[in-house]
């Protein structure tokens, strides 16, 4: 089995650099490759360059926020000629679950309210990566 098929790519999108760093450390290992993006614009550029299996995205960010990032991703993947990769799984993180309620009600992707325990995020990432393999 080729080495690259085992590597799982995770993109952490949050404007809080400290949280990106901590999450990178917390989730690294098991052959995972983890990148960080400070907002949705950067994340979209990175997603265009290479495929990711999982995206951890904050909801509230400057410029392009979490819901916009998600909708843009879904729109892009309606045109599979340009984006041959499949739509990555997404975990949303929010400091305030009472915002973006309409969006959160419409999505089936998991939502974590900050701050969340280490074991919860680790478990969720493991499960979703296994499901997307």
């Amino acid at each position, binding site marked *: 089995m080729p080495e690259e098929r085992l590597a799982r790519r995770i993109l952490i999108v949050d404007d809080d650099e400290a949280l990106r760093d901590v999450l990178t450390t917390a989730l690294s290992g098991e052959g995972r490759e983890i990148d960080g993006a400070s907002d949705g614009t950067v994340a979209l550029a990175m997603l265009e360059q290479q495929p990711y299996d999982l995206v951890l995205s904050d909801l*509230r960010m400057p410029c392009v926020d979490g819901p916009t990032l998600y909708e843009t991703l879904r729109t892009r993947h309606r045109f599979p000629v340009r984006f041959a990769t499949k739509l990555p799984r997404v975990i949303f*993180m929010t400091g*305030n679950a009472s915002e973006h309620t309409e969006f959160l009600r419409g999505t089936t992707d998991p939502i974590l309210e900050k701050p969340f*325990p280490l074991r919860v995020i680790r478990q969720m990432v493991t499960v979703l990566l296994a499901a997307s393999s």
Partner: protein
Amino acid sequence: MRLAPKIFLVSALVIAVLSVAVGWSALTVKRLVTANQEIATRSVPAMRLQGSLRESVGSLVRLETRALVLRDQDYAAAWNRRTARLAEELTALGAHLETDAERAAYRRIQSAVEEYRRHVEAERRLVAGAQAAAALRIAEGPAREAIQRAETALDEMAAATEAALAGSQARARALEESTWRAVAMALLISVATALGASALLAYRMTRSLGRLTVATASLAEGSRTGPMAAEGRDEIGDLGRSFNRMAERLREVDRLKEEFFSQISHDLRNPLASIRLAAEILLERARAAGDTRQARFTYLIDASAVRMLSLVNQILDFTRLRANAMPLDRRPVDVLKTVVRAMDEMRPLAEEKRVRVDLAADGGDFTALAEEGSLVRVVVNLLGNAIAFTPASGAVTLRLTADGHRLELQVRDTGVGIPPEALPGIFEPYRQAHGQAKGTGLGLAVVKGLVGAHGGTVRVESEPGKGSCFTVTIPKVEAAA
């Protein structure tokens, strides 16, 4: 049109209608008065003159006979005066005639009296020529016949006048009836018009005010979304438009408050997320390396972050409740699962304090229309207090009961209890029953606020030294809808 001119116009209309009614009534009453005046000024004097004439005619015959038989000049002079008076009365009676029958009788009286006068003059000439017997024949013959014709014509005239009087009285009675009918009708119409105009104005005003009242009540309950219909150019229309502007401004303020709290919440929780995750990573590593001292310190960092999170949540919840910026996103929620989630959250604290936490559930359906996050906070706050005030090896028991249309959650501890004097204000903000500096003093105020926002109640029973029991009741009926 503004309200003042509207009210003025309606009042003016009412006054105008009333004035027309009064004018019409006055006219009909005047006709009635005229009819009665006619009776008083014509018929009565005519009858009086007729009586006087009858008397004069009778006395003329007596005076004529005496003057003729006694040849007394005084009787002759008296006859002359009475004849002159009769002529005056006849002239006066001429002014009071109305019907043709009266006029015909009048002419017959004139002609008979004139003929009688000529016969009396002839008698006097015969007496002067010493032909008394011839004069007496005229007196008892043609003169008597003439005076009898005059009396007959007088009787006919009296009958005609009485008939005319009866006609006038009948007309007056009919007029009186129609007059009262007209007055009553005019009053009825004017009262109906006045009431109708006033009712229309009142209906239009109260309808607009009613709409405004409904809109205000909806706004107060936070359920109004769109502007209300504010037609009309009067002050009520202005009020409606001002209300719409105010409602729009309130919605904008609500949106800004929401945005503000959302930002604050994000800014406070993000660093806590980093702190907790970093502390947990360090704790793992310290434990793996067997460094108990570092493990202890990193545990303290994590525990402090958890406590700080609890304080931040309480302060944010309380401030939002105070600012009325906490719209509930209510959905059908399994409250049993929510209670279990809150228990999981508080388990580390319970384990640390070595307090046992048990849950019992009575009933099958624990679904309620509620906001899960708020319910978790209610249970976390109650459970946190119960654990905090229960000594080691004590117990906290949660009991969830589905009772008809409501759910009841009891949180009972075997802790220190609450002094009776602290019980009445226990749900007030910044009150701490035990006077300790730990905590914000907002936990129970937040519980009360969140439960109240769900249409529920919370109450407490406590016995110092034995423990406390908090009971939360929320309605579940809407969940079925």
